[in-house]
């Protein structure tokens, strides 16, 4: 009986949380955009969320590409198929690692920062104070952060994949001696724009939406204490990571399973 009641209570809490999250998002983004005031705010957030994530994305993309090339080479060379190194690395990056790993890194780097920042603004009454100044914090604070995250992550994912392929080229061609022409041409014959690149972009757009939504909602909805902020930050990272991986499976099944 008690278990049933607990289940009911948790279900209700989950549904009301989802409802609040939808309301926060919709009231933040559904209104006539004001470009005069909105553009500088969006710029500032694109800088915070996008530009400041570049370093981690570039470095990890490069290393992941290099590792892929090294691992792939040692396996492929056993079949005399090291010519397939290029497409192997490119497909792995474009279809999976680019969107997924950059989304995970983004959740850790930018998502947690967004939650903590908004939570702190709530705890220090800055959001209340905006409201009392007749400025809607959802539009002023939440909306530019949401859009910045939504725009940044697909770009970051593309940069991640590109740097990864360049890293693989560095290891595979310059170090292990695969022919550069073969590397690129075999890759080109195997990689399809619609199937691989476009699907990868669609994935990262979906991840961007989910991660940024969770991050801004968790910050806005957090308990305005230091403990509440830390809990909200943790759950942003945990929930977005789990959702990224689950959604990745669903999207892959829809896109590539024939």
């Amino acid at each position, binding site marked *: 009986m008690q278990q049933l009641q607990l289940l009911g209570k948790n279900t209700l809490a989950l549904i009301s949380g989802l409802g609040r999250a939808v309301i926060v998002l919709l009231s933040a983004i559904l209104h006539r955009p004001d470009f005069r*005031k909105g553009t500088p705010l969006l710029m500032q957030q694109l800088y915070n969320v996008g530009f400041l994530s570049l370093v981690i994305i570039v470095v990890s993309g490069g290393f992941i590409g290099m590792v892929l090339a090294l691992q792939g080479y040692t396996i492929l060379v056993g079949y005399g198929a090291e010519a397939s190194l290029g497409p192997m690395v490119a497909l792995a990056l474009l279809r999976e690692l680019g969107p997924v790993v950059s989304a995970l890194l983004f959740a850790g780097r930018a998502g947690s920062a967004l939650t903590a920042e908004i939570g*702190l*603004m709530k705890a*220090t*009454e*800055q959001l*209340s*104070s905006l*409201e*009392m*100044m*007749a*400025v*809607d914090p959802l539009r002023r604070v939440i909306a530019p952060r949401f859009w910045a995250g939504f725009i940044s992550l697909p770009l970051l994912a593309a940069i991640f994949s590109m740097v990864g392929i360049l890293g693989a080229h560095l290891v595979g061609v310059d170090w292990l001696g695969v022919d550069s022409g073969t590397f690129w041409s075999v890759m080109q014959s195997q990689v399809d724009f619609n199937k691989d690149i476009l699907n990868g972009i669609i994935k990262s757009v979906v991840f961007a939406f989910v991660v940024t939504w969770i991050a801004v909602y968790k910050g806005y909805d957090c308990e305005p204490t230091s403990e509440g902020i830390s809990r909200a930050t943790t759950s942003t990272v945990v929930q977005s990571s789990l959702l990224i991986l689950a959604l990745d499976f669903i999207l892959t099944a829809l896109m590539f399973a024939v």
Partner: protein
Amino acid sequence: MISNEKSANSASLVDINNLTFKRGERVIYNNISLSIPKGKITAIMGPSGIGKTTLLRLIGGQIRPESGQILFAGNDIPQLSRKELYKVRKRMSMLFQSGALFTELSVYDNIAFPIREHTKLPEAIIEKIVLMKLEAVGLRGARDLQPNELSGGMARRVALARAIALDPELILYDEPFAGQDPISMGVIVRLIRSLSDALGLTSVVVSHDVPEVMSIADYIYIIAEQKIIGQGTPEQIQQDKSPLVKQFVQGEADGPVPFHFAAPHYQNELIKNSPVLGSALNSMSSSALSNRGQI
């Protein structure tokens, strides 16, 4: 409605009628009524935790009451649509306990923020307004500092300058004296008084610092136990016969507001939880008795 407008125009800016507010199951206000006179400083006092800040949030329309009217210049705040509420809020401002300065903006930009947000004034005029407001709180020299470089008292003065940036009719002060050293406390007392006198602002001060409030308020409401337990000018409050008001004003530890939070009987609770301790307690009290007997 028309009569409300009249009464609002005549003497009071804010009228609260039969307000009931609950937080979950807990009743915070039970059917209270009060009015805040125009151009005066009204203080709301009471022990911590009775929801004084909640009252300010109710007036600001950030939360809605269970029942009752909150009239601001004739507008019933809980009934307003979002758009109307935002329009009304431009006529009031609130000084938060923490100051609530925007941490990413400088002092100057913090004060310019509401002006930029709600007017289309050219930057040159905005600068003049900001400097005037900063001069009024005595911090013109701090215009380029960041909020994290300010002391608590200075932050509150900057927040005050921001609160008066758009020349509101009503300022709500949330615990303006809490956690201030005596000097900045004095500065803030003087500022509230002089802003009220010079600009004809209506002020609502929520506080539990008795001497400061006594020194500046024109009218005082004391709230405890979900109700208004006393009201009047500072002199009337001093003379008040009610034991509850007396206890609060003189700061006695025990009285009508008991020292002990409501709890089951002390000894019973100790004995109930542990029979061993209960018998030990009994023998202890008997030995205490016997000791006393010896003495």
